[in-house]
């Protein structure tokens, strides 16, 4: 993953900073509580939510089980529709491919729509090193980029910045990157959005190369799907002559019809909307409409390692809705940066150590950055049993022999951090006791030999965190 995060302090050290930053804590608390309440209302509108969730989970499990076939299908379909498919085994290779493709166009700047995959690979820095400037166009990403910052939330990357800070960043930095902020810019959200519109419009209108990720790719048709709110995605996908999409290999769904499930569950889980303002779907290239050249870069970068772990592989079902962040008592107090990766919160705690391995302090500490309360599992639209994976990864960290001793220390400090923040822990345990009875002991479905048979274990963690801690470490 990205070099941006190399040398990150382990979770408790990074969290300590956040806990002492009152602005950050206030912003985070306001934001996560607002979204979580809205999400609950949006989900309650659909009385078949549990069935949509189960369908989403199974579609993803099925896709992952036959991922090799579906990857080949996607490749065939995209190629037949006029696109070119590239394969990247790791971040470096993905960045190399993209840089070469951009250079081949003769351009030295690109417009980008928010993409976790390219943040994961550190694409912007890699392009910068090749003399190519990448402009982030999502409002939050723009705030982060202009502020020389790192994103702290999957969906609202600038959640740690309040309006006054954003105005200051716009005033001091926009001129460096292009059109300066209007005179007398105030801190009202409407004015700040208008400033971003003006600043970015000139870039969209002259852009020749766009870079995106995708929320889904449909194997049978070769269709890519980008879900967004602002319209910057549509700009990047439509106006440039060349479009390069970098997409994790787990983003596949087998059929066009499968979108009927995820287009219901993703917007409601993520922005708590019935539907997000804009969704773009495209298949290869179309004469006279949009980019003339389309490249799809299929990214592995640790996903196949994750796939090989029979408990951990369920993390690849994630559709990046960020609902688990918004309900997490630990995330609320520690902030996104403490997770030391582009994937913060509960999903980051299980995904980063699997994508990157548990060899570094930050990655070894992440599985401990949780009170195992289970709120994340409950809201997850693809039913990822995050506590189960956390417990599994803790066992792996503890079993790590040689360097295990150093990492064990990190784990202990993380757990101590949680104990020192009883609010995080108590909120967690309270939630857990309230929700545990809602969690089925067995998931519906045939046979003990089903692929996810490890999930026949109780969905909730077998023991509360404090007990686990006492038994294993005290």
């Amino acid at each position, binding site marked *: 993953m990205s070099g941006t995060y190399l040398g990150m302090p382990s979770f408790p050290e990074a969290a300590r900073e956040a806990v002492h930053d009152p602005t950050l804590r206030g912003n985070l608390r*306001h*934001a996560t509580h607002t979204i979580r309440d809205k999400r609950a209302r949006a989900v309650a509108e*659909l009385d078949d939510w549990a*069935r*949509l969730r*189960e*369908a989403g989970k*199974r*579609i993803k499990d099925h896709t992952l089980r036959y991922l*090799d076939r579906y*990857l080949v299908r996607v490749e065939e379909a995209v190629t037949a*529709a006029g696109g*070119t498919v*590239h*394969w990247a*085994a790791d971040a470096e290779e993905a960045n*190399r491919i993209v840089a*070469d493709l951009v250079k081949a166009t003769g351009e030295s700047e690109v417009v980008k729509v928010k993409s976790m995959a390219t943040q994961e690979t550190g694409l912007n820095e890699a392009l910068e090193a090749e003399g190519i400037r990448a402009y982030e166009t*999502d409002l*939050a990403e723009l705030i982060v980029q202009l502020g020389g910052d790192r994103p702290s939330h999957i969906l*609202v990357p*600038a959640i740690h910045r309040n*309006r006054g800070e954003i105005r200051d960043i716009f005033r001091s930095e926009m001129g460096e990157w292009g059109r300066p902020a209007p005179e007398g810019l105030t801190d009202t*959200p*409407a004015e700040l*959005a208008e400033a*971003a*519109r003006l600043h*970015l419009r000139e870039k969209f*209108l002259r852009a020749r190369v766009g870079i995106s990720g995708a929320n889904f790719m449909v194997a049978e048709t070769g269709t890519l799907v980008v879900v967004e*709110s*602002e*319209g*910057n995605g*549509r700009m990047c996908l*439509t*106006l440039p002559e060349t479009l390069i999409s970098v997409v994790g*290999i787990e983003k596949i769904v087998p059929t*066009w019809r499968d*979108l*009927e499930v995820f*287009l*219901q569950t993703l917007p409601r889980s993520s922005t708590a909307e*019935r539907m997000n*303002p*804009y969704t*773009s779907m495209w*298949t290869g290239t179309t004469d*006279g*409409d*949009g980019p003339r050249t389309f490249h799809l*870069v*299929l990214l*592995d970068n640790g996903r*196949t390692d994750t796939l090989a772990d*029979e408990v951990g*592989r369920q993390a690849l079902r994630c559709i990046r809705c960020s609902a688990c962040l918004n309900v997490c008592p630990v995330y609320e107090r520690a902030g996104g940066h403490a997770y030391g990766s582009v994937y913060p919160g509960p999903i980051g705690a299980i995904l980063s150590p699997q994508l990157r391995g548990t060899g570094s302090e930050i990655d070894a500490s992440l599985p401990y950055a949780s009170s195992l309360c289970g709120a994340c599992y409950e809201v997850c639209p693809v039913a990822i049993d995050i506590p189960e994976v956390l417990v599994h990864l803790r066992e792996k960290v503890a079993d790590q022999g040689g360097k295990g001793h150093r990492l064990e220390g990190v784990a202990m400090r993380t757990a101590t951090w949680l104990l020192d923040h009883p609010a995080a822990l108590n909120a967690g345990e309270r939630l857990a006791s309230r929700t545990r009875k809602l969690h089925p002991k067995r998931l519906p479905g*045939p046979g003990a030999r*089903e*692929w996810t048979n490890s999930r026949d274990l109780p969905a909730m963690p077998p023991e509360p965190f404090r007990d686990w801690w006492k038994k294993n470490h005290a």
Partner: protein
Amino acid sequence: MTSPSSSRDRVLGRVRRALAEAPEAPEVTRDYLVTHTPDDPATVLDLLHENLVDYRAGVHRGTRQGLPSLIGRLLADHGARSVVVPPGLPGAWLAGSDARRRYDDPPLTPAELDSADAVVTGCALAVAETGTVVLDAGPGQGRRALTLVPDLHICVVDVLGQVVASLPQALPRLDPTRPTTWISGPSATSDIELDRVEGVHGPRTLEVVLVAD
């Protein structure tokens, strides 16, 4: 091709090794609802209307006969002096407006689109439960950029043939080979302290006209 074929083999090889021991996946279940709305056209239409308004689109109901004057009034109310006309738009729709026509033939440049005040289109479909209009670049809609760059989008929905209740009813009616844009209200962001603000990069005003005959 930039990527050597060996990377393809490597990734596929890793996937196959990772799955070597994996049991078969469980059957996909589809016992979720096909629709959440009673099967009554008037109810479905009211729901579409309500949900469009909820996401701050303007909604207007009219007849085919009254369409030219309705569109003319909407363009005038927003002070639109020029309007982009996608290929295949029924000529009568703009008969009630004296806004300057900008035809996409030859294709308008991004800068030309940026200087136009409005665009008027039809659509492929509207989805009531989500308050969505779907464009698929068909006749009367034009290529995607036309409905993206101008700041006012007026979209006409044929109530008799183009309204469905739900997503499971919408997808089978769309052609995946066409570039498709799903629009649910005007462009918006909640990136600043989660206050929803209409209009960042797409059209800041969306007016939907529901036409029944």
